[in-house]
């Protein structure tokens, strides 16, 4: 499997158009009809997923955009980047996101 240390991989959420969501008072229940699985996501995870659904990004780009959106301070960025990496790993494992195959950077590796 793609190691999380490959910073050049662009992630996207090809199944996002089909996701079904319900709000459970601050927790999102999300059903992916492709896998048949149901996941419970907190707000941060949900935001990460939505950002990838809008635009394919590398882990670094994602962490940067998220930090800007949350107005993160310098000392919080490392923690945020770590959280992003963990979330991407989990999302990849359960199939909510995938590496984008037509990416010229990815093909070179």
């Amino acid at each position, binding site marked *: 499997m793609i190691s999380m240390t490959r910073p050049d991989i662009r992630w996207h959420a090809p199944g996002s158009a089909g996701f079904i969501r*319900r709000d*459970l*008072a601050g*927790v999102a*229940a999300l059903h992916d*009809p492709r896998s*048949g699985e*149901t996941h*419970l996501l907190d707000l941060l995870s949900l935001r990460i997923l939505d950002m990838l659904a809008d635009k394919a990004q590398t882990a670094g780009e994602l962490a940067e955009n998220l930090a800007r959106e949350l107005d993160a301070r310098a000392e919080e960025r490392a923690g945020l980047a770590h959280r992003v990496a963990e979330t991407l790993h989990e999302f990849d494992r359960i199939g909510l996101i995938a590496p984008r195959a037509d990416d010229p950077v990815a093909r070179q590796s």
Partner: protein
Amino acid sequence: MQRHGGGGRPWEKSLGETAEIQRDDHAAVAQAPRVAPPRPPVSDAADAALRRGDFRFRIGPFATRLALSSPLARRDFRAIYGEYPQYPADRAVDFHLRIAPTSLLRRWVRPNAMVQAGIGNAPFVPLPADLGFLALESAMNWMVATTADAWLMFHAGVVARKGRAVMMPGLSGAGKSTLTAGLAVSGWRLFSDEFALLRPETGLFHPYPRPVSLKNRSIDIIAERAGADRISRRFLKTPKGTVAYLKPPEEALRLMDVPASPALLLFPEYRPEERARIEELRPAELFALTRSASINCDRLGETAFTAIADLVARCRGFRLFYGNLDQGMTMVGELMERVA
């Protein structure tokens, strides 16, 4: 054959228990004293139909066609299912069940009974012929749990009052059956003690009032309230101990086609050493607990997700810790007043 990864769903455990009860425990059963069952009203036509394999009876939405070879099993069946409606031959059959000896020899020598349902990979194993009724019950559990996918099913007891239903999910042995049985004979309408049937299109619960299985001490506790004539003979030395069946009240059978809308989701736990209390469940927790009590949500995919989310949105959910049956029943009543 469907293969499933990960375990832990309540219904998978129920299947394990079903398989347990099927194991041929010759020695234990051979030692059990034979208790003569109460004589049911004589019906030669019914007995003949059971022998022929032409007996058709209906429980809620499911119509079974049954062949039952053992004389004692037939007596048990007629004693316990005698009040259930039959249906005409032009109504399509849901479950074909033949419970018969595995060979000509085993008809006479250490007579046994084996369930055949026409389904490959079914976990049926031979049982002593006298326990044919138990084989029938566990076979029907298995058939419903694995094939009735027009319904969203939960491993739960369901009772209703004034058209509003309370669903009580829980593993067998957590006291759920006793609580359900107690409510069923105290003015609540029994929908089911084992299988909650939810129609995804309408969000309503539909009755599936099987005879309620009671174990060990629960038998006497319920017999006291229901009357001994509503309880079957005791089946001794089964893998779960002593088992008996409560015949559902007449009203539950008469209204078996009348659904109810859900109002309350309760997760009861029998804790005699603790203080009785309730804990309201937050939406995410309630969703997760309810979903994990579902038997076939994985098979129903998106339909199940939406139906469970809707169910959880329209009901309130509580954990209920109670110390004795009366207390539990009172608490259920009070909660229902609160929400309905």
